[in-house]
């Protein structure tokens, strides 16, 4: 049945000239801030919205692509090599701008929802967003970019979930994006693209702030703003704990 519907849409799309009907996105996020406290084990951001139309829906399959990405940070990718019988870090490449988190969710198979050209033009997929500049350090930049993506995918920081965006009645859509516990703090960007026949016809950007709160925030700030005080505090806790344990055990063994 689905296949039939798809074929029908495909036929309809090719037979009638694609009329330029304005379509827009009205979307929201379940939360605009994610708080990292002591019990933080990751979070889920719900992206939901609707397609806004002034006229009846145009022909051609509708697609939705949602990209949630974390702040960019430089990262060094190192490769080990066997030298003198042992494995040591040999070549290394610095990637100046690599997103610390990158999740792509689509309403169908990626290649069908988005054309190669639009993907490249709008930097949608992970490999379009991570790339290594030509350096003298290596002649295989692509291998280093692939390694960065592979390692972060294994850590749950980069992901591509095809067909995870639910679209109902050709109008409403929603998707859940998982943030793992090892996310970096900062301003996260949620980009939503609406496509017809793989071409982007509308987009919208929303922001989510991911921040430490409470004790976590306090400890982090103290460690960076007053490092000497923080170091002394760490030592004081260690000394007090060592002494208390010793005293407690002495009382325990006397009785």
């Amino acid at each position, binding site marked *: 049945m689905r296949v039939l519907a798809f074929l029908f849409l495909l036929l309809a799309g090719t037979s009638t000239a694609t009329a330029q009907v304005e379509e827009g996105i009205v979307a929201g996020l379940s939360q605009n801030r994610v708080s990292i406290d002591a019990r933080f084990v990751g979070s889920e951001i719900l992206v939901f919205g609707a397609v806004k139309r002034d006229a009846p829906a145009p022909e051609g399959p509708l697609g939705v692509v949602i990209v949630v990405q974390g702040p960019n940070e430089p990262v060094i990718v190192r490769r*080990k090599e066997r030298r003198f019988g042992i494995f040591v870090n040999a070549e290394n490449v610095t990637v100046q701008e690599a997103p610390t988190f990158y999740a792509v969710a689509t309403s169908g198979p990626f290649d069908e929802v988005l054309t190669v050209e639009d993907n490249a033009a709008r930097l949608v997929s992970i490999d379009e967003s991570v790339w290594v500049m030509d350096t003298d350090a290596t002649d295989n930049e692509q291998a280093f970019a692939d390694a960065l993506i592979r390692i972060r995918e294994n850590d749950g920081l980069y992901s591509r979930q095809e067909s995870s965006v639910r679209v109902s009645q050709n109008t409403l859509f929603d998707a859940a994006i998982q943030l793992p516990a090892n996310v970096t703090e900062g301003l996260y960007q949620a980009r939503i693209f609406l496509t017809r026949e793989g071409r982007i016809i509308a987009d919208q950007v929303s922001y989510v702030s991911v921040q430490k709160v409470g004790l976590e925030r306090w*400890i982090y700030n103290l460690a960076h703003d007053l*490092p000497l005080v923080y170091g002394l505090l760490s030592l004081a806790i*260690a000394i007090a704990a060592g002494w208390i344990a010793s005293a407690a055990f002495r009382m325990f063994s006397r009785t």
Partner: protein
Amino acid sequence: MQIYLPIAEVSVNAFLLLGLGGLVGVLSGMFGVGGGFLLTPLLFFIGIPPAIAVATGTNQVVASSISGVLAHLRRGTVDLKMGTVLLSGGLVGAFAGVRLFAYLQSLGQVDLLVTLSYVVFLGIIGGLMLIESVRALMRSRSNAVPKRRKHGIAHVLPFKSRFRTSGLYISVIPPVIVGFFVGVLSAIMGVGGGFIMVPAMIYILHMPTKVVIGTSLFQIIFVAAFTTLMHAWENHTVDLGLAVLLIVGGVVGAQVGTRIGMRIKAEQTRILLALLVLGVCLNLAFGLLVEPSEIYSLGNE
């Protein structure tokens, strides 16, 4: 129960950390080693970033060493004079070591240096201790009177001083050099240095084993405290959340370990420590020799 660590920025199981701290604390109390050489690789293994594991590990070493040294002080098995002499060399060495570390970091390859130092030193020390303690055990089995070498290089050098608790009358030059050397190594390897200090005291300074453990713990406190402060100040890599969990486990473990240590024979203690040191050494050597499943790794600038 998962807990989010504010500096390491990862979420880990709190009971796992308590257990790790406890295990290392027991070893600390039993053998007079800070346990840093075991704790640091274990923390890597559960996913704590290496820089934070090293710095926070030294903070835990301070706590468990204090807990252990107080138990030893009450039993009179700490040679405070010898400890102070060792420490004077140790602090100078630690400072020099921090400088050397920074220099090597600027050249790159500091990870390799750290791992290689671990493999080489753990291998040499573990091997020597195992051979020596097995021999000692065999001597005591055959009921022969254990013969301790009473005269070494420490007896012929100048600046002789009497170390009452250890029952020694030796030159202060060897302890200062030993302290300095251990200080350099502990700064490079991010450990208290007990696993080097203990054998050095036994085989170079000829101190009685009972006194060695308490004295080693005494000087480890100061070297580890110095290192913790340097890491917190310069690198912001001490994680208080992680430290508190490790410390709570560690101080309890150290008390248990001290009591276990009193019940087993000195020779047996040494064999166990030797096997432990060799085990860690082989594990690290294996990591260097075998091709890793992921030859790429990520690092911060």
